[in-house]
């Protein structure tokens, strides 16, 4: 391992004088570890291109241009319709891939910058030599970092080299999107994969760094259950709301409350990943309001006294919304300063005084000054809460009916709504005193307020929906398991074999944002379906929150019904966005811990293993952001399929296999070198489903892998067929492509399936216990 040698002396008295502040850095030293280095340490853009092309040969991009033009340079706008090329020579396919690459660079850069800021802050506070200790059950601490960079990090300081590498690569990738660079759509796609791989390195660094030193649950299946929901917030106390993705402001606030003995006097709650981090840091004190789409809902209730912004996915008009309810806003990330004065070095009491007196519209205090953030937030909340009492309520029913009376029924709200929700009808009903239709919008509305912006009468439509739904949201009191972080090595040892042999039908990951096309309940329903079927279900980010916001008839959420273990029927909340790396990391760990493949700088071999053997599938049902795009692309490079909801079609291309093209589905038998047809497993790599039913059936299908044993394939087929029949009422028409031998057929359906196979002219074919797409692996791992 390469390592910087740093030597620092604060003060040294010698015979010849006193040395102060001496810091010496002598290049790097190399620390070896037992595993031999693989072929691609710190791969650059072209190094894994061959592997990418293997995938892209199977999963060809299907472009669905969201825009037919390019307007990225002053030659433009250029019309790229129907194979026209722009002034720079680029065609529409390459332009779509280029935009995807841009999105993935934005996503990866966002996680990288997050990781860099976090690691710097942690090093400042805990020292460069603070160990990467993820608990007694985690020895393989950083599967992505080891796999991609060849570094085995032991301390926080060791993570810096991996960050340096990833930052350099993302810069190179971004350069590829400049005019007059890449011209091939497939090479753009390969670069998209590269961005995704780097993104998972970045996410892993961020999460293992904070988990190692901040007292988060460490790979703990029994991480505590924490409160979630608007109804859990005690509005009689001053309320501080954190929003974004960073942990630093929460650390400052919680620590200050403890230090000042005010723990029981102030409510601290959060949204989006900041809420995950808050409750991982302080499960006793922190509460989760909800996923990112709850931000305006919460602000419109008037409840938060102080809003602490950090970074990523935060509405940029939140300060304007805060002003309407007279709340104090503290910005804490240099990436999101909101035009506020920088008072990082100012006296906290003076800042509070200025904020309360409204002499400043808000304040920026750099995230590294956590103590100051905590002190200002708490003091400001306590001072302003009594002054804001009249803001802590929604308008009365009479008032909102009056507002609805202004509606001119132009229908702009419906056309502005991403889901074309029937807002116009609801307003008409509200005009007549009936608020029921407004309340019916609540579970489907993502609170983007595009309707309000389009409204000719300036009606605050979301506020009306909130008032009509007051009883519903006040009853939102749920439990979600705090993010547990990594998967234990021991868990991997237990489930590695049944996953690879197919006896656990699959690992389904519900990840991503909350841009649901048909309400969040669908995510919970899908999750429950797979839990009942004994899949391992992992969750993260906003999806993890949404899943916890529905109860069964006994009043329990899925988190209270299913264990948090990484095992069949387990519901594993890894945590925030950056914790997604533990989900992909688990697949890598299976290759390393269970199959004993060398991990170190050995990307293509491990990805080939994961693609052909680890039956996993991601579902990002409400994927919205650029980060979601780069997270997905990191899964793609590992050969793990991802399904998105209907809005995901706006990522403008899918990666689809063609099961009717037999030639696309051959692998090498690594024992013999023979090329063998294995069927379309997995059939697609990136797929935007139209309905939850389609997503569930597809996910079950996408968990099939070339290496499945007959018993494993039979179990996977049982689920695929059963779901297909349940939702579509018939046997899947492609069943014959997945049945290799009669022994694969689920016993309870044998007669029906044999009849189906007979009609299809099906013939038995051989299994391939050791499949690979890489010729160089033939006979290597015997």
């Amino acid at each position, binding site marked *: 391992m390469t390592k910087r040698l740093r030597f620092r002396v604060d003060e040294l008295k010698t015979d010849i004088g006193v040395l102060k502040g001496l810091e010496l850095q002598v290049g790097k030293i190399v620390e070896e570890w037992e595993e031999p280095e693989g072929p691609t340490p710190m791969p650059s853009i072209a190094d894994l291109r061959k592997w990418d092309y293997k995938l892209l040969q199977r999963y060809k991009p*299907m*472009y*669905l*241009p*969201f*825009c*037919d*033009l390019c307007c990225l340079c002053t030659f433009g706008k250029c*019309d790229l*319709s*129907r*194979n026209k090329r722009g002034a720079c020579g680029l065609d*529409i396919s390459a332009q779509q891939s280029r935009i995807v690459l841009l999105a993935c660079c934005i996503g990866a850069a966002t996680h990288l910058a997050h990781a860099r800021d976090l690691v710097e802050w942690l090093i400042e506070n805990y020292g460069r030599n603070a160990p990467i200790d993820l608990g007694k059950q985690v020895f393989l601490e950083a599967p992505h970092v080891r796999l991609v960079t060849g570094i085995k990090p032991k301390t926080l300081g060791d993570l810096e080299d991996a960050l340096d590498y990833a930052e350099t690569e993302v810069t190179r990738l971004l350069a590829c999107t400049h005019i007059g660079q890449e011209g091939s759509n497939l090479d753009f796609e390969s670069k998209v994969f590269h961005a995704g791989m780097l993104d998972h390195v970045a996410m892993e660094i961020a999460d293992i760094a904070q988990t190692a030193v901040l007292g988060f649950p460490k790979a703990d299946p029994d991480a505590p259950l924490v409160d979630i929901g608007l109804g859990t917030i005690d509005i009689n106390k001053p309320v501080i709301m954190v929003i974004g993705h960073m942990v630093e402001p929460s650390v400052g606030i919680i620590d200050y409350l403890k230090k000042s003995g005010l723990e029981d006097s102030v409510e601290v709650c959060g949204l989006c990943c900041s809420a995950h981090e808050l409750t991982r840091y302080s499960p006793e004190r922190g509460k989760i309001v909800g996923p990112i789409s709850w931000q305006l809902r919460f602000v419109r209730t008037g409840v938060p006294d102080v809003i602490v912004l950090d970074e990523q996915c935060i509405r940029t008009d939140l300060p304007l919304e805060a002003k309407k309810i007279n709340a104090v806003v503290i910005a804490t990330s240099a990436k999101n300063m909101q035009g506020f004065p920088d008072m990082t070095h100012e006296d906290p009491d003076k800042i509070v005084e200025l904020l309360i007196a409204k002499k400043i519209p808000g304040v920026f205090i750099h995230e590294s000054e956590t103590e100051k953030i905590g002190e200002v937030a708490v003091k400001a909340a306590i001072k302003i809460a009594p002054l804001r009492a009249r803001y802590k309520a929604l308008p009365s029913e009479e008032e909102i009916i009056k507002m609805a009376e202004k509606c001119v029924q132009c*229908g*702009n709200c419906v*056309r*502005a*709504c*991403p*889901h*074309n929700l029937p807002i116009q009808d609801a307003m008409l009903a509200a005009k007549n005193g009936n608020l029921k239709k407004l309340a019916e919008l609540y579970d489907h509305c993502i609170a983007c307020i*595009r309707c309000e912006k*389009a409204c000719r009468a300036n009606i605050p439509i979301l506020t009306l929906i909130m008032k009509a739904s007051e009883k519903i949201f006040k009853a939102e009191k749920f439990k979600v398991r705090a993010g547990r972080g990594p998967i234990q090595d021991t868990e991997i040892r237990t489930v590695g074999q049944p996953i690879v042999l197919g006896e656990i039908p699959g690992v389904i990951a519900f990840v991503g944002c909350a841009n649901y*096309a048909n309400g969040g309940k669908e995510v919970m329903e899908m999750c429950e379906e797979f839990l009942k079927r004994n899949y391992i279900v992992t969750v993260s980010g906003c999806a993890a929150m949404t899943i916890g916001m529905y109860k069964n008839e006994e009043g329990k959420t899925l988190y209270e019904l299913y264990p948090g273990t990484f095992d069949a029927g387990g519901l594993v909340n890894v945590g925030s966005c950056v914790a997604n790396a533990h989900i992909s990391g688990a697949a890598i760990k299976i290759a390393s811990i269970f199959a004993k493949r060398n991990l170190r700088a050995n990307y293509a071999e491990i990805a080939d293993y994961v693609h052909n053997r680890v039956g996993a599938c991601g579902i990002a049902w409400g994927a919205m952001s650029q980060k979601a795009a780069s997270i997905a692309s990191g899964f793609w490079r590992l050969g793990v399929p991802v399904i998105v909801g*209907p*809005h995901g*079609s*706006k990522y*403008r291309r*899918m990666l*689809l296999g*063609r099961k*009717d093209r037999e030639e696309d589905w051959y692998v090498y038998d690594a024992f013999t070198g023979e090329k063998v047809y294995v069927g379309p497993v997995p059939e*697609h790599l990136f*797929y*935007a*489903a*139209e*309905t939850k*039913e*389609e997503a569930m059936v*597809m996910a079950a299908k996408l968990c099939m892998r070339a290496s499945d044993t007959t018993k494993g394939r039979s179990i996977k087929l049982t689920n695929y067929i059963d779901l297909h029949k349940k*939702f*579509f*009422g*018939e046997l899947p*028409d492609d069943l014959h492509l997945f049945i290799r031998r009669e022994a694969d057929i689920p016993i309870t359906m044998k007669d029906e399936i044999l009849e189906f196979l007979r009609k299809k002219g099906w013939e038995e074919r051989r299994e391939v216990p050791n499949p690979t797409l890489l010729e160089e692996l033939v006979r290597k791992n015997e």
Partner: protein
Amino acid sequence: MSKELTGQIAEIPGPIKALVVIKEPKVAAAIIKKAKRPLIIVGDLATKYDEKGFDSISLITEVGKAVNAHINVTGPLIRKFRETGYDKVYFMSAPEVVDRLRDESWKGHDGNGGYDLVIFIGFRYYYAWLMLNGLKHYAFKWLKTMSLDPYYQPNATYTLPTMKIGEWREFIKKILNIIKG
């Protein structure tokens, strides 16, 4: 209100917009009848505007039967389409069928040749927008597309204008009546 309002405010069409905005049912009927190998792709929202006297599944099936069209159902509505007994109903998801349609060599659901007209009905506006745009760019040489949802879909070759639902129901019924002659 302009009839060429898109179904969502920010969906601004590109330089190539629908060839024909169908203002009269007889125009839609003529285009459908003229097709040699029509395919009707039915999305999950096809029954969203059903009411007494307007059964979209029955209407779509009758159109299919009248012009010998294949009907591709993309989701759970397949159960109901099977119940109609029409033997040219196929089940394939929207991404998969669109992927095949942009392949000129695809021989259709029955293996007897590609389609020349694809009719979309029952889709979320933006989802159809994207699927139709994929076909507009990548299948324009051999395929015409039509949207029969009640919104202006500029990426289709032929589209209805944005219309009120009641008006749209009558429009669809008239198309069927004309086709059945």
